Every structure is written in C-alpha cells, then in structure tokens.
C-alpha cells in the first residue's frame, strides 16, 4: 500500500528526525512503531499523509508517487485517516457534527447519511449517548474515541494513530486501546505509534523499532520483544531507559531531576505511581539523609533503570563505609524516645522503606565509589 523509498525529513541543519528511511506497508498490516522519544516515529506518520512532506526521497501510495509535485493531497488524506495525540476535534462542533461535517463536505453525503453513519460509529466506540456533547464536555478518552470515529467515518484505507493514549490518564488508556483492537480485528490497515509495550506486542503483526531516524529493526512482535537482534533494540526492550548522572554538591537541583524522571515516565508509558515512588525516594534519600550524613566534599552516582519488572535505583557514593540499608532499617524501626521523634531522617527513612521492595548494600574499598546501595521499587499496578 505504502512504499517508502529513502526519505529524509530535515527541519533544520541539526533537526533531522528521519534519515534515509525505507519501508513497505502492505494492506492489512497492523504495525506498531516503538522506540525512544525523538527518533522520528511521529514524523514518519506525518510524512505518510504529507502533513510534514519529506525533504528527500519518495513515498508511493498504491504505486502513485504522493511526494510528486501537483499530487492531489486532499484525495490522499481522505484515504489515509489520522488520529492525533491531542485529538484535534473541532471545538465549535458537537461530537456528531465532528463526524458528520467531513462526510458532508468531503464525501458529498447528505446530512441524513452522514448522521446515520456517525451514530453507527459512535455506538461502536461506546459514545452514542454523548453525540450532542461538545469536545470540551468530553473526557480525554472520550475525545480520542470520537476522533477515531471521525477518522473512520471517512472510510479510509489506512489509519495512522500518533500516540493516541499518551496524553490520557491511565484509567482512560484501556477504553481507547479496546477501540483500536476492535478496528484491528476488522482487517483495517493500521500504523500506530505507542509507548505501551504490552499493547504494541499484543496488537499487530509487525513491529518497527525506530532509533535515530531509521527503522533500526523490524519483525513480528515475538521477534522484537523476545529475540531482539540489534544492541539498541535489546537495550530498549530489556531496560527501556536508564537515567544516570553524578551529584557533587548539596545544592543539587532536585527539581530538575524530578522533571527528568517525569519525562522518562511519559516516554516509557510506565505507570505514574511507580515513578512517583522513585521521585519520593530520591528526594528523601538525597535531600534529607545522604546530604546530611556525607562530608562536604563527595560524589554520588545515581542510576535509574526501568525494566519490565519495575524500577530500580542504584546509588554509588564516596566516603568511608556508610551502610545505608542498616541505617534505613534502624531509623524506620520503633522510636526509642521522644527525642528520636524529632529526627527528620527518621521520617524520611520510614517513607523510603514504605516504597522500597528490596534494598541491598555492598561496600568494596577499592571501588571508585566504595558504597553501593540498590533499591527496587514495589510495583504498584
């Protein structure tokens, strides 16, 4: 259906999200695009309906070159449906009008035909009774379902979904996933960018793993998830993402650090609560315990791993032996006296112990960072 030949998308000298990418999309394919953020997954979708035309290379749709000058893009776009992360429903129209208007204006259907088709689709996405609501009156998940219904009303040959659940609360992700699965079952050709690995794995027949502007590896879901070949894929699938860095000063900006973690959470689609736990643990451990216990001059190396099982925090720090595991266990225990109650580290320790599933501590004098603490976070799903 689509034949992509050596396309490159260049926004500026530095910003080149797609570099010499080639691929084929066949009728009936259900393709999940996965990969780290900023590697061109969304741009690839936007090239396919020419919202962002590639700067080099050619794209063919049914053997017609859509990148050629003078190709009627409105015709192409009517056959290539698109669902956006931010829904892009027309805010001045009700749900049913959002679905009717394109049919009436573009497919030249009568209002009645457009209405009947619209109501049928709204029923399929479970929003029949919301048909007269304006987008502002709908929840994110409902908006996205209306957006899918709107795209489907145009009877497209292929549907492109660009991170349809990324801006949704976890509770609403499922309702949208259900609708996408339902479409997949009808034999619709689908390309979807997603960060939800379980969904990507269960949905389709093909997975594209994109990294730095190219399709780094592609295969069936089983091939990609169970037997990744390329080192980039392996790292992405196994660990998904690692944040690491050094801290040298007690004035370290914990806010920036928190933002980094939240950004990673967004990219990996991990449950928010797990990341919140990581933020709390790092905040308490660094700000209230280590910064007070360590001498003025120190170095801490932190590493956050996000795997399929959950999150892990690894902290290495300088100085003589400082058994943090023992410290935390002792402090979180029973308060010995009233004086102890005023000890702030005691509260911090209790919080950390509450979130941690497993803590291990090792000390090796000849290591660069002799103290090493590892905290596994309880998976609250």
């Amino acid at each position, binding site marked *: 259906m689509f034949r992509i030949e050596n396309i490159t998308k260049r926004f500026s000298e530095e910003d080149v999200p797609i570099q010499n990418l080639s691929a084929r999309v066949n009728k009936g394919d259900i393709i999940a695009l996965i990969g780290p953020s900023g590697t061109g997954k969304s741009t690839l979708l936007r090239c396919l309906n020419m919202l962002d035309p590639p700067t080099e290379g050619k794209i063919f749709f049914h053997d017609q070159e859509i990148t050629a000058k003078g190709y009627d893009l409105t015709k192409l*776009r*009517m056959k290539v449906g698109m669902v*956006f992360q931010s829904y*892009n429903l*027309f805010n001045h129209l009700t749900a049913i009008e959002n679905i009717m208007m394109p049919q009436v204006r573009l497919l030249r259907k*009568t209002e*009645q035909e457009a*209405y009947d088709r619209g109501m049928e689709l709204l029923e399929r996405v479970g929003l029949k009774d919301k048909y007269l609501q304006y987008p502002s009156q709908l929840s994110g998940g409902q908006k996205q379902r209306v957006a899918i219904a709107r795209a489907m009303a145009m009877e497209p040959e292929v549907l492109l979904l660009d991170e349809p659940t990324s801006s949704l609360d976890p509770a609403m992700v499922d309702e949208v996933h259900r609708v996408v699965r339902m479409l997949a079952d009808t034999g619709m050709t689908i390309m979807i960018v997603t960060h939800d690995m379980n969904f990507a794995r269960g949905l389709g027949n093909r997975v594209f793993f994109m990294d730095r502007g190219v399709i780094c590896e592609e295969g069936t879901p089983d091939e990609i998830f169970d037997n990744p070949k390329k080192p980039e894929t392996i790292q992405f699938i196994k660990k998904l993402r690692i944040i690491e860095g050094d801290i040298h000063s007690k004035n370290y900006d914990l806010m920036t650090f928190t933002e980094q973690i939240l950004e990673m959470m967004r990219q990996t689609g991990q449950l928010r609560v797990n990341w919140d736990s990581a933020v709390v643990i790092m905040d308490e451990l660094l700000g209230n315990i280590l910064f007070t216990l360590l001498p003025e001059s120190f170095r801490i190396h932190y590493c956050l791993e996000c795997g399929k099982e959950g999150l892990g925090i690894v902290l290495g720090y300088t100085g003589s032996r400082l058994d943090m595991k023992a410290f935390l266990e002792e402090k979180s225990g029973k308060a010995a006296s009233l004086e102890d109650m005023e000890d702030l580290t005691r509260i911090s320790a209790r919080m950390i112990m509450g979130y941690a599933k497993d803590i291990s501590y090792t000390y090796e004098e000849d290591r660069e960072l002799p103290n090493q603490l590892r905290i596994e976070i309880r998976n609250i799903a």
Partner: protein
Amino acid sequence: MDKGRCKKTILAVSVIMMAFCVSVLSAYAGSPRFNSMQDFIGKKISVLTGTAFDQYIEENEILKGQVEILHQNSDVDSVQSLLDKKCDAIAMDAPVAEMTVATHNELIAFPELICKDNFGYGFRKGSPLVEPFNRALQKLMNEGIAREMKKKWMGQDDSLKVLIPQDWAGEKGTLRYWVNSGSQPMSYLGPDGTATGYSVDLLLHVAREMDYKVEMSGCSFGGLIPAVQSGKADVVGGSLSITPERQKSIDFSDPFYKGGAVLVIRKEDVDPGEMAEQYGLTAWEEQEEPEMTIPEKIWDGFYRTFIEESRWKVFGKGLFTTVMISVSSAFFGIILGFALFMILRRSGQTVRKAVSVIMGIIVGIPPVVLLMVLFYVVFAKSSLSAIPVSIVAFTMTFGASVLRMLQTGTGAVDAGQTEGAYALGFSDRETFFRVILPQAVMHIMPNFKAELGALVKATAVVGYIAAHDLTKAGDVVRNRTFEAFFSLVSVAVIYYLLGKLLAYLVTRIEIYIDPARRTKEQILKGVTEHV
C-alpha cells in the same frame, strides 16, 4: 465610633479643608486690575487657534514676550475660560469683541487696541479672481456698503440679520466659498445651521456684482487657509486678518473691514472710576438682570439648546452624520480588514512586511492627523466632500484593527485544529472557513465590540474637516447659545447611548452566531433521528 465612620469623617473634613484652601488661594490670586496695557504683563490671554492675535501680541511693544498665550478652539471656549478665570483676557477683533461684550454683561473690552487689524478675503496664490474681486469690492465700498453692513450686522435687531437671496443669474459660474463659523458678527452659524454674518453677506454682494453664484461651506478657522491652498475653495474668509505671514501662503483681497484687535476682560477686574475717567467710558452701570430660579434656569438652558430656532434639528443632523460615518466605516473596514487578511494568508514575506508597515503607519498616527492628511493632501484635488473622506479615513483605521483582530483571533485557535482538518482532507480554504474562522470569531467578538465603540467616539474629530457631526453640532449650538451645560451633556449622553446600542447589537450577533448556543434542531438540521 467605628473605624469606617471615622475614616469617612476624616475624608470629608479634609475635602472641605482642601476646597476652602483652593477657594481662598484662587480669590487671592484672581484679582488683577487692568488700568493700562502694562497691567497685562504676566497674565494669561486667550486667542483663537489659527488667528493672528498671538502674532499681534508679539508685535505689541508692551506685551511682547510678557504674557502667556492660551490657544482656544472657539470664541465660546475663550469666553467660558475668561468667565471661569482660567485666563485673564481674550484677544479679539473689535467687532467680535463688541458683540461678545453686548451678550455678556460681566465682560468689557479694554479700550486700548493691541494693534490695527484689517479683514480680507483669501485666495489661492496667483488666483485670477483677485483682481476682478477687488474691482467689485471697491465699487461697492465707494457706494457706501460698509455703513450699510455695519448697521445691519452689528445692530441689536436680529430680524434684519438675513443674507441677501441669490437671485441673480450667476453667468460667470460658481464661487466655492469657505467661511469659519463662531465669530459673531463677522461669520457665524445662523438659526438654520448655515453660515451667516457680515463677511458672508458682503461676499454675496461682491459676487452679485461679479455675477457669480456662491456655494458656501462652513469650517473651523484653522481650515480656511488649507482649504484655499488645496483648491477645495475658491475664496475663504470670515474674520481673516491680513498679515504678512499669511500673505506668503495666500493672496488677499483689499481689506473690507478695518478694525483692530482688543482685549476683552472681566468687568470686576477693572477699577470703574479710573477707567471712566481715563477713557471716558460710562457704559457699565450695572443693569439689573431678572433673577431666575433654578428650575427656570434649567428650562431656559434646555429651551435655548434644543427648542429655540429648532436647534434639536442641528443635533439630529449631527447624529445622522456620526452614525453614517461610523456605520459605513465599520462596514467597509470589516471588508477591508478581511480582504487584507485573506491576501496576507497567501502572500510572501515582502507583501506581509509592506502591509504591516502601512498598517503600523495608519495605526501609529492620530486619527485626526490622518483625516487632515487625507482631506488636505491626498484628496485635495478631488471633489470628495468631508463625509466620504472621513469614511475613507476611518475605514482605514478600522480595517487595520479588524486585520489585527483577525490575526490574533485566528492565532488563538490551536494549530491542531488546522492539522486535524488537513488530515481529513479539507482544502486550505475550507479549513479556514469551516474550522478556523468560526472559532476565531468567538475570540474576536469581545474585542470587536470595544473597537466599534472606540470607532464611534473617534469619529468626533471629523469636525476638523468641516463635517457636521454630533460633536460639531454641540459646538454649533454652544456657539449660538453660550450655554455649555446642555449642549455638552446632551452630546455626551447621545454618544453614550449610541455606544450602548452598538454594543447591544454586537452582543445579539455574538449570541446568534455562538455555536454553543444552538438548539438541537439547529445542530441536526436535515436529519431525522431514529428513536
């Protein structure tokens, strides 16, 4: 006593004390005595903007550089500021001063002239009309027209003060004559709102002698010279003094009235005995004016402002002009702004830059300056009258704000809306009209309401180019009645009501087009629901 009342009491006491101080100070400062020209040194003297009096004062050996000059827009304003003690004297032409003193018992003309002053009619430099005009004027003068005019226009009998009818053939053509109003008795607006007075009547006599018809237009004093320079008028003049300065810009007829400039002052500022002795003036024995009660005064003001000489018609005419200029400018401005917006959407950087520079200029200069530039420079050679030129000017300014509103309004619509429409297959045009514009309009409406109100108020300056709008109507009536309260307040009230009415209409439109207020039937037009 609770805190609030305490505060109020303190406030009231301090206000009273302040008022007391002010009144004591002003009483102390406000008692000049004018016995000789030297006494005017350091005082404030009002002159009419555009007249030569400031120049005369500078040429006067005693006053030169020694007085503060206040520029006023009409003689009525000058008189009011003298009565309110905002100035100490008004420099006026002798005949105007005579009239002013006759109508205001509290005022008196200082007997010494500032300088001699001759009135003439103005023509474009090198106009072929000057010579035949002078010949005709001279002939009339020899026949003693000056005496006749003086008796007719400077006397007390108002019933005599009518212009001669234009009953001659006028085979030579038509003279376009512009005259400033508000200088009784030389030139002012008569009961029917058209120009009348000594100069006007005399000009008609001269025109009859020359066998020309006369087409009259009223304007402000400052508009006289530009009118003849730009060729909008063939001849101008009401109380136009002949000065060397003006002779550089225009040609003058021979003087038709030889007078001088005098200072009008408050009677209370004069030592009666001294003056009478020195100048033999005995004119101001206090005349007993019948005391009027407050309701009588109000009725008198109301009567003179609206009913006498059917002056409400003057207001009506002014209101019509204001509404006409505002509504037309709004209408054409919307079209202009929208057209520019649509052109800019599709054009490149150069056109955008050019338009933004032009818009910047239009928005950057005061409307009144734009108006005068259009009238006296751009359309100087065309025969466009004041109202169309006003409409052009305000169409430009309103078009510029419509363009700006559309730009910010569409900018406020999320870029995702455009993408969503494109992705469905909508063309650029349909995306704009079906998706972007309906949403942008709702952002624009509140702003639009404010801009429309501002437009109506901004049109108040069209009087500068002699369009007879509502503000001008107030001025005209005020010039006749010397009664500021009713004409100003009624002009203010009419503007306010007009603004309210427009805001109400726009709000109705806003509600009508608001997509969120549609009924179910409107949303599902052409659809039968299955139950």
